């Protein structure tokens, strides 16, 4: 698809000088500015049309990253860090021709210490590759976002990524012990330490989730999580969504924190079952996938407790996976959900908000009502255990005017979540997508306080500009999501 924004030519004389300097400093094979590269790196996994990338760099060492950032500073150019580009909030979309610094070639696992349970990795290591490399030694990296087959640890750090199993284990911030960072002025600094016990300000903690606006991580010390000795996966089906939601709250209130607790509504269950045939009950109003882990007796005890709670709350049946194959089958359905919806409509817009668990029923009802009102199909597949909603709005991008309805419906879903006592994002981040909603959640003074973080790390505003915080300035070429060209990829 041609991108109308690419009509804007960005190669200036200064650009030529920067290009030559980068080629000299990090090697010409690691610097690109051809049309294909620029098109490829103009967008990420979000619905945003491409921005305008400047030169695209592929550093292979920390020193290369330092060189890139220093060169950008010398030429008064901003920069955008980029992992695998799977982000869904536009965090890696380049605004105003910045240097794009892709860390995908920094993809080595540098050191693994099973005794002390940590590993130093480069930011371009793919999430699932790390876990696979640890598995034979009985460990894994706990954050498991849906994109884990392709997303990178550096991207996980930038977005403070989650995933189904973060209910019990916590999101990325809980699994990062230290980060080596190139700050926006080119200074190299290590934030945190492998013992996770430094005093002083928790600069590591605020850097994680900074969406690439505070610098670039070049080495990351991650915590290794021991694989649990016993895992049990349950599939519960309900004839009423309210009963499924009630079950979620009742399980938590009983003092059980499952490793994962995922909900799928009737529409997505039907679509997924047709797609992968994993044995989901297609007549159910909702299914819950619950996974518990730990020592075997405790797992057996919790399984019985969950069975009783769910049946008391109105579950029609509880299926306990009796083998690894069955367990994988249950998860295969959940993990295929986003691919399966293509059977229904060619496009979808995936939302991400968090609400209090106890408000699940009323918010879901409002989400259905909003979608009906805008004549859109909505499907829900989400992390019910921590109240992290992911309504999928389905549509045909070729339908004239449909994007306006998708965006208006999305805005209402966000507001309904906030009105229920929720927050804007649970794992996708703010990026470009949600910064216009920040004022709906935070006061002017609250946002000014957040801006202080940016000011301390990046006083000149060079790192990933126009993201996260609303400001007077805007990313002119991609600011108007509602003006998406027809046929836009989403």
């Amino acid at each position: 698809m041609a991108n109308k924004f690419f009509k804007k030519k960005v190669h200036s004389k200064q650009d030529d000088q920067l290009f030559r300097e980068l080629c000299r400093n990090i090697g010409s094979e690691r610097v690109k500015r051809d049309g294909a590269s620029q098109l490829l790196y103009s967008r990420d996994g979000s619905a945003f049309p491409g921005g305008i990338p400047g030169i695209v760099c592929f550093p292979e060492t920390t020193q290369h990253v330092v060189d890139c950032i220093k060169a950008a500073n010398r030429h008064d150019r901003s920069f955008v860090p980029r992992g695998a580009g799977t982000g869904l909030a536009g965090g890696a979309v380049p605004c105003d021709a910045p240097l794009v610094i892709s860390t995908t070639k920094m993809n080595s696992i540098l050191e693994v210490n099973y005794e002390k349970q940590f590993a130093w990795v480069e930011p371009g290591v793919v999430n699932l590759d790390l876990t696979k490399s640890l598995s034979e030694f009985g460990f894994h990296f706990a954050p498991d976002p849906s994109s884990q087959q392709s997303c990178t640890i550096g991207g996980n750090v930038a977005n403070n990524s989650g995933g189904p199993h973060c209910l019990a284990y916590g999101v990325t911030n809980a699994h990062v012990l230290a980060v080596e960072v190139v700050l926006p002025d080119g200074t190299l600094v290590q934030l945190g330490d492998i013992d996770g016990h430094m005093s002083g300000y928790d600069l590591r903690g605020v850097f994680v989730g900074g969406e690439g606006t505070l610098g670039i991580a070049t080495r990351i010390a991650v915590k290794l999580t021991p694989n649990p000795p016993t895992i049990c996966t349950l599939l519960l089906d309900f004839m009423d969504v309210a009963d499924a939601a009630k079950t979620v709250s009742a399980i938590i209130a009983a003092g059980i924190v499952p490793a994962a607790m995922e909900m799928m509504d009737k529409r997505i269950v039907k679509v997924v079952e047709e797609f992968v045939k994993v044995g989901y009950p297609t007549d159910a109003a909702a299914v819950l996938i619950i996974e518990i882990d730990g020592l075997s007796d405790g797992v057996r005890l919790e399984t019985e407790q969950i069975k009783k709670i769910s049946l008391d709350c109105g579950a029609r049946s509880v299926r306990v996976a009796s083998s690894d194959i069955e367990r994988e089958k249950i998860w295969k359905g959940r993990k295929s959900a986003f691919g399966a919806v293509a059977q229904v409509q060619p496009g979808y817009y995936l939302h991400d908000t968090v609400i209090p668990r106890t408000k699940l029923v009323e918010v879901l009802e409002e989400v259905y009502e909003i979608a009906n009102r805008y004549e859109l199909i909505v499907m829900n597949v989400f992390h019910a255990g921590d109240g992290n909603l992911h309504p999928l709005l389905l549509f045909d991008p070729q339908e004239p005017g449909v994007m306006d309805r998708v965006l208006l419906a999305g805005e209402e879903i966000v507001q309904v979540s906030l009105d229920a006592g929720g927050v804007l994002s649970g794992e996708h981040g703010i990026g470009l997508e949600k910064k216009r909603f920040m004022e709906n959640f935070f006061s002017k003074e609250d946002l000014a306080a957040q801006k202080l973080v940016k000011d301390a790390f990046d006083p000149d505003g060079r790192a990933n500009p126009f993201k996260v915080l609303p400001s007077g300035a805007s990313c002119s070429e991609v600011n108007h999501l509602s003006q998406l060209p027809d046929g836009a990829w989403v």
Partner: protein
Amino acid sequence: MNDLKKFKEDVGKEGFVAVVGGKTHWEVGGALNEDIRLVFAPTGIDAFDPSEMTVSVKAGTKLKDLDQELARHGQEVCLEGFLETTVGGALMVGRDGIRRNRIGSVRETLLQAEYVNAQGELIKAGGPTVKNVTGYDLCRLLVGSLGTLGLIGRVILRTRPRPEKSVWLQGELRPEEVRRMCFQPSSLLWDGEATFVQLEGYGIDVDLEVSQLKSVGFEERGNECPIKVPRFRHKFSNRSCLDGGVADIHSSILYTNTEASIPQYPEEVLCLGAKVRDTFDPTGRLNPGRDPYKAGP
């Protein structure tokens, strides 16, 4: 006038100011300058919903009062301290206890904070839900800041289920071996001769691991820590030099009776930390004299 509004007015917009909590960690990070106005944070538990696993509590509330309320519903928070330690004090010092492996880090427990900034404004940081990536996570910066970035009045904390059973054991096996034998023991201490391990969870799980440890010579020592953990914390890096102290194997902290030396931080870290403090409190009016980089591990 509500408690938070009064707290905000007490802090005011100018003049050196600090919050007094239980004074159980008053010496941490250096002495306050003289001629400082001392204020008190409001107290009381505002809301606790066990099915959300969150509690909203004012910063002046004593940990023991919060713990008592949470215990009635079988839950707890990962703040540890002394009898008089307040919620705000434990957060501002930000030190994890020896049960970190089970109940998590203090830095992960603060979900939302309402604090008064250097300009005297009431600011909300973070959000009320257990999962949240909405903007910069100021809560991370506040924990361990010794009140130098803002003075917290009310917080929302993540709670966790209390274990059904908790038991300490003592034996001669090296702590690394114990770590391999047990699935995530809550605490693992070593005094250079004996290993002390705390197992928590469902009774049936704990009993199983107790019997495994007994088979290699461990003995049950009740549900209170059987060894006195000294007060001063050091980084534990040299295993041949315990210096009469007790090492926390999970966190690599050595507890001794001698005052800790201040760790050396790289210049770049101190520089960035100073920038953070200067941007949050340009006139240096919040807890002057205190320095989080002099707080020790």
